[in-house]
């Protein structure tokens, strides 16, 4: 098949990294791929993942349109960042395709889009999916944390993207209902494609110089990724700081983008609790891989779990690292004997107990790590992902003529002022059920 593949390609995008793996496998499987980078203009000069195929920019309208006329399938990698996925939103309405949904919560993506297209359009989408009340209060959150808390359950914007797709790949079965409700075409659960960055096979113990050096005998606990409040960093610092067993044995390292005020807060907290906190900031992928390689325990906690799957967790497992996760969402799917799960209701106690156990038990760490690696290698396979993606695209294509016809009518009704669910549509929809049985 000829495939147009929309994705971020910047080096700092984990999705971009995954896309490169998948595209490589698609090429091996004999398909003709053109990548269209979906980041906002501001990212165009940043370092990128290297793709072996042609890479266009989403704003190259003519070239994309001309390619689109001969393409067999279009794939969109969508995640919760407007900066990284703007191009997907620009093209989805015009160029039907399959969406690989990396995050169920798309509030930030939506907010960025709303800034671009205006609140009126945003309110229209919000009220159509969630009602006028939700729409009215949507943009009034006081902080990022508040925003996520208040909208992730009531208005995660999953439906908004899913409804624009002719098919959706999700990476876990968690909270799939919204996708199923909204997507007119097939929805498949496919484990996220991932692998270990090649450069890390070198046995180099190299830490990004930032503050302290590691001292011998210390256990290195690592959390990677953009330091969001939902990654539970504070909980970990607390758990370490209030445990005699942990406090002096552990270095807690953060690798990933961190806002200055958050950094200040965490540093202050660590100092007050006498926790050895090493904040490395944002690094390139090679350095990141090295940091993971060097870690003894990975903490990949998320609460609430916003992603469809966690690239960093998969990465940790592929590196054979014992990993601590929250027992929610995507992580529920992971086998009990491959990761350590912490219950959200007893976060503090479970976390502290688990850390203490792991720190005191090198054998357990090793066994866990090995099992994690074996599981991850077989499950998160890029070639498997690629063939599942192709299969879904074919099935979605069969449903496309019907979907496009329904769009014609939906658009007509909207043009005639039909909003919300007041217009009785039973007699309109019933005769069309024939097309669903196909």
């Amino acid at each position: 098949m000829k495939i147009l593949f929309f994705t971020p390609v910047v080096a700092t995008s984990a999705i971009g990294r995954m896309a490169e793996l998948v595209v490589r496998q698609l090429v091996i499987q004999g398909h003709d791929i053109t990548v269209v980078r979906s980041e906002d203009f501001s990212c165009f000069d940043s370092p990128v993942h290297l793709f072996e195929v042609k890479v266009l920019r989403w704003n190259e309208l003519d070239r994309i349109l001309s390619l689109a006329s001969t393409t067999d399938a279009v794939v969109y990698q969508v995640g919760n960042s407007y900066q990284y996925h703007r191009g997907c939103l620009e093209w989805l309405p015009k160029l039907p395709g399959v969406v690989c949904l990396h995050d169920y919560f798309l509030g930030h993506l939506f907010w960025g889009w709303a800034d671009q297209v205006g609140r009126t359009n945003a309110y229209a989408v919000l009220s159509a999916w969630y009602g006028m009340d939700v729409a009215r209060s949507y943009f009034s959150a006081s902080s990022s944390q508040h925003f996520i808390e208040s909208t992730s359950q009531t208005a995660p914007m999953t439906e908004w993207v899913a409804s624009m797709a002719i098919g959706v790949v999700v990476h876990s079965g968690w909270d799939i209902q919204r996708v199923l409700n909204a997507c007119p075409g097939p929805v498949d659960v496919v484990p996220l494609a991932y692998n270990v960055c090649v450069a890390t096979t070198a046995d180099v113990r190299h830490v990004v110089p930032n503050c302290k050096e590691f001292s011998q005998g210390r256990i290195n606990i690592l959390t990677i990724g953009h330091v969001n409040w939902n990654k539970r960093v504070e909980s970990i610092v607390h758990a370490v700081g209030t445990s005699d067993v942990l406090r002096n044995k552990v270095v807690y390292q953060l690798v990933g983008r961190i806002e200055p005020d958050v950094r200040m807060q965490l540093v202050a907290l660590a100092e007050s609790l006498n926790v050895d906190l090493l904040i490395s900031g944002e690094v390139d992928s090679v350095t990141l891989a090295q940091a993971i390689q060097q870690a003894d325990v990975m903490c990949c906690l998320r609460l609430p779990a916003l992603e469809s799957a966690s690239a960093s967790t998969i990465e940790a497992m592929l590196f054979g690292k014992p990993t601590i996760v929250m027992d929610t969402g995507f992580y529920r799917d992971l086998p009990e004997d491959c990761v350590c799960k912490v219950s959200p209701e007893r976060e503090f106690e479970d976390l502290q107990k688990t850390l203490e156990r792991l720190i005191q038990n090198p054998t357990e760490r090793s066994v866990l790590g090995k099992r994690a690696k074996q599981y991850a290698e077989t499950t998160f396979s890029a070639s498997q992902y690629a063939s599942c993606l192709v299969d879904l695209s074919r099935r979605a294509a069969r449903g496309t003529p019907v979907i496009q016809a329904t769009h014609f009518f939906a658009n007509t009704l909207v043009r005639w002022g039909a909003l919300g669910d007041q217009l009785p549509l039973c007699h309109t929809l019933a005769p069309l059920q024939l097309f669903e049985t196909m």
Partner: protein
Amino acid sequence: MKIALCSSFAPFIHGGSRNIVEWLQVKLQEAGHQVERIYLPQVDVPDLLFVQMMAYRWVDLASSADRIICFRPPAHMIPHPQKIVWFIHHIRVFYDLWDSSYRGFPDDAKHRSVRDALHAADTAALNEARHIFTNSQVVSNRLMHYNKVGSEVLYPPIYHPDQFLCRSFNDEIVYISRIEHHKRQHLLIEALRHTRTAVKLRLCGIGASETYVNDLKSLIVAAKLGSRIIFENRWISEAEKVQTLSDCLAAAYLPLDEDSYGYPSLEASHSSKPILTTTDAGGVLELVQDGINGLVTEPDPRALAEAMDRFYLNRAMTQQMGQNASARLRELNISWSHVLERLLS
């Protein structure tokens, strides 16, 4: 009964299926039924197929008609508890003509998805019907092959069979039909060159293609057959048709791979005249049996010439075959009473 006859149409284009519908309407009304004829527009453009099919789904005849009979696609998409389909043809470029030069769009993923979706939708709609009839075995076979749907062959009669008669047998083999390349009048002209008897040819009709008509004229001139071929290149009235057939030696009808036997074959049979056709004529062979009610030859000028000479020389055989042709109509139950009986059961 209140019966709605439903079909698709293209404004200002008069296709063959209009005859079936309009004649059926008269016959049903003569039998005392109330008939409404519903023609809705349709264009066979891939991107527009499904929007139009959905429109047909919304045609609501459930409370006004006791029964609906659906003809040209996508009329069979109209829902009704008593839906009868008299299936004349698929949208063939999406079916048996997919791999042919008639498909005016590329064989790419998008169009394949339209094709696959169309097959599924047609199948689902056909399965809603109480009965499915077709106009030939060829079409029935296609329905089974592509849609896995069984059907009964119901041959469409001509409107006024009674006006046809058999008066005499002259020297002419007549071909009364549209003048078109796939009707292959040229083959017959070629054949005449190879005949050894004084058998003559009369071609009647008009065609859309001036080129083909001119080609035929050139062919006649080049073969120096002007004295033995009459080319009536004009519209032939029903009355003229009756006269010509009543006195002819035999009738020819040899289209390339046509779905149904065609009205010319039927008209000849009603006139008790044998039919000359070829092995590759398609549905015509459901009516014409070699040596019984006509002669079926290879689509080759010499083979045709031989057959034409046989008709000329063996008048007894020709007459007998003509009678068999008339009997064959009864054998195949080609009559309006049978049609009504089946459609209304």
